[in-house]
């Protein structure tokens, strides 16, 4: 699967206009170099080799850590990507934690209090959360909490006055909350329905007839079993986190990979675009694999193949 992805990414790179040589020199220099010299350069760089050989070369480069160079700045892509990943990782993990905790809790309460006012309010709020465009929510949040009330810094991640590690956490709050909101709604719904399914099962009735207190039944027996499909859902939503970070990072000027990707697309910096895409696919595939492992560990009925 990963191999197919690398092939597609390479194909994409080939489809974009221009090749490495035409990007190497500025327009004035290009006008002065003769065609023969350009051809010789191409030959030496191995650009005239058949498609497959170039793919193998490129793949070898990627595997050994050479990701090519950014077109606009000439900085090795590896440095760009690795310097930006921690920021995006922070944001994604924070949003994941927030949405999982909040979503499962609200879903649990919704299911237990089914039909009552709490359930209805949560459901409607959940639907509103899914309908509001993420970036709009981000803009409104930025306006009210950062600019109007001044509770949080306006954007960015680091400032010169931040010395300890935890100083920049207050920059993280708003972006993580906004990114987590739409995922919370989905998790909440799913937890609710999964919990409702579990509560109606026979073993819950047995536990109740044994005389166990209701809260114990709900939490220990019902919730734990209901959690398994929710974890699968979260695994499926991971691509959404990576994608959502693109917009959120733009609004809050968070220096992560999403923002970098956006800049690369805007300046038609194709090598960087393709590399970041490859990385995100890689992240998604690894995450799905980990989720599969986790599900197998949690649910004794599932077997790994």
């Amino acid at each position: 699967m990963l191999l197919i992805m690398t092939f597609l990414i390479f194909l994409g790179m080939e489809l974009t206009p221009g090749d490495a040589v035409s990007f190497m020199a500025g327009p004035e220099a290009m006008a002065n170099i003769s065609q023969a010299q350009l051809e010789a350069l191409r030959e030496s760089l191995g650009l005239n080799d058949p498609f497959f050989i170039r793919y193998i070369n490129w793949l070898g480069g990627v595997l050994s850590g050479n990701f090519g160079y950014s077109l606009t700045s000439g900085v090795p892509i590896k440095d760009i990507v690795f310097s930006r990943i921690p920021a995006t990782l922070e944001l994604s993990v924070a949003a994941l934690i927030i949405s999982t905790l909040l979503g499962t809790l609200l879903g649990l309460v919704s299911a237990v209090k089914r039909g009552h006012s709490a359930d209805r309010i949560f459901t409607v709020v959940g639907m509103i959360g899914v309908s509001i465009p993420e970036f709009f929510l981000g803009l409104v949040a930025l306006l009210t909490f950062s600019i109007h009330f001044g509770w949080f810094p306006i954007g960015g991640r680091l400032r010169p006055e931040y010395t300890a590690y935890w100083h920049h956490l207050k920059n993280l709050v708003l972006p993580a909350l906004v990114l987590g909101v739409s995922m919370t709604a989905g998790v909440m719904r799913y937890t609710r329905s999964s919990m409702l399914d579990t509560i109606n099962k026979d073993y819950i009735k047995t536990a109740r007839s044994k005389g166990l207190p209701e809260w114990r039944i709900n939490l220990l027996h019902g919730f734990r079993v209901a959690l398994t499909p929710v974890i699968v859902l979260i695994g499926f939503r991971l691509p959404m986190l990576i994608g959502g970070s693109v917009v959120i990072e733009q609004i809050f000027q968070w220096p992560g990979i999403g923002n970098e990707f956006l800049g690369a697309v805007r300046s038609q910096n194709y090598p960087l675009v393709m590399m970041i895409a490859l990385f995100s696919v890689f992240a998604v595939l690894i995450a799905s694999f980990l989720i599969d492992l986790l599900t197998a560990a949690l649910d004794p009925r599932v077997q790994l193949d």
Partner: protein
Amino acid sequence: MDRILEAENTKTFRKKYGSRSTRKFIKNKLSILGFALFSLILLSSLFAPLLTSYDPLSINLKEILQEPSSSHWFGTDKLGRDVFSRVLYGGRVSILVGFGSALGAALIGVLIGTYGGYKGGLLDKLFMRISEIFMSFPQIILVLLLVSIVGQSMKNLIFIFIATGWGSIYRMTRARMLSIREEEYIQALKAFGIHPLIICYKHMLPNALGPIMVNITLSTAMFILQEAALSFLGLGVPLQIATWGNILNAANDLNVLQSYWWLWLPVGVIISLFVLGINFIGDGLRDATDPTQQG
């Protein structure tokens, strides 16, 4: 038994209107609210020329950045264009892109999924692999990738949305087909020797239409949100054409965010209300067509 005969004779047996699904839908209050919101905004956009006399593209530098007033209901933007008419006309494009992409994705997904789910075999496995590949990409990243390769335009955007969106409808249709395939009437049709294509599209497909319609409505909502996000970033529909996302593009500037709220706040609220309406409708449809729920 006598009472049944009596009811039949006096024709009180027949329900008053529509099929069971329609009645369930109408009884659901949230669905009606959603339908009302949806229709209100849709009709305002469609009948835009009747509601506003301003041309959304006409630049009037004498009237830039005016606050909402009785002559300009949503105020004017940086180039003096009336924001209200831009919102209305922009709605046309946004809804077109959203609904068109959802329909296109559904068309492709359903066509392939129906036959693939019924037949199985190599072709089905191939398409499953292809859809898996598409779905491993985070959607925005795939969309942006394709935008950087093929360029920005409204038609390109619809194609890109269809290409990234057909996978989920395909999988859902295929799953439904897998379960319908085992039903007895399908076995009977097969025994009669009816051609597989006719079995697929004439007999199996109508039974799967419920979830497909729900999927189309929810996909429309998703695509409208995506178009808005892309245009907000400046990478969706080109900036000359007014769409809801394009209007929000102005809010990228912190200055606009603070001082000129009418440029972006009304549009955002309208998008949210419209998508909310669609979501309510989709939920209502799902509850109405789900046979496991009591009528």
